[in-house]
């Protein structure tokens, strides 16, 4: 499946990428993370959450959306 991956804040900086398209054949968020860690090894060293279609998801969540966002710790306000 084709996914659009968006990187925010620190994560955009370390991957040197704010948005990319990805062909993904795995099932869960965990699978996707593995895939992304291979592509961008520096991601492993950083704390982040994943949102699928604007909702935060857990490792076990199935990937069904096309919009995936990688969110570093929040700093609003």
């Amino acid at each position, binding site marked *: 499946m084709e996914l659009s991956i*968006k990187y*925010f*804040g*620190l994560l955009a*900086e370390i991957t040197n990428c704010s948005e990319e398209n990805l062909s993904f054949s795995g099932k869960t968020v965990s699978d996707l993370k593995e895939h992304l860690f291979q592509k961008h090894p520096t991601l492993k060293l950083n704390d982040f959450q994943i*949102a699928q279609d*604007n909702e935060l998801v857990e490792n076990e969540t199935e990937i069904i959306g096309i919009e995936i*966002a990688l*969110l*570093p*710790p*929040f*700093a*609003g*306000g």
Partner: protein
Amino acid sequence: MKTKKPKNIFKEGAISSEFIANSIAHHQVKTQIGAHNIFLGQVRADEIDGKKVASIEYTAHEEMANQKFHEIREAAFEKFDLSCMHIYHSLGKVKAGEICLFVFVSSPRRKEVFPAIKFIVEEIKENVPVFGKEIFEDKSHQWKVNT
């Protein structure tokens, strides 16, 4: 006073005191209101390892953030007897001493506004995907994390 669709609460750059004044003045026609509470977040010139923060550059997952703001808004109206509520957050560069967050709640009675403002601000800090790059006076930077 509820809105059904997420509004865009982001503003480019700092939130000016004139903007805040204007917002206050607009409530003079709402004569059922007895109490307002306003929270303002201001960029601090923190010193970290001898370097001083000169500004913060804010970015956000805007669509998700506006959705979250909307949910916080709905929850606050559910929990507290509020007449109105406004939230604005900066995007882009905000210098030390400038305002980056403006939360404004109003109610007929004061007892409602104190827990309401705290609830909204804590929810924003914890659950809204906004990111802040602290830029030091020497142009180096680090990424802010809410505590």
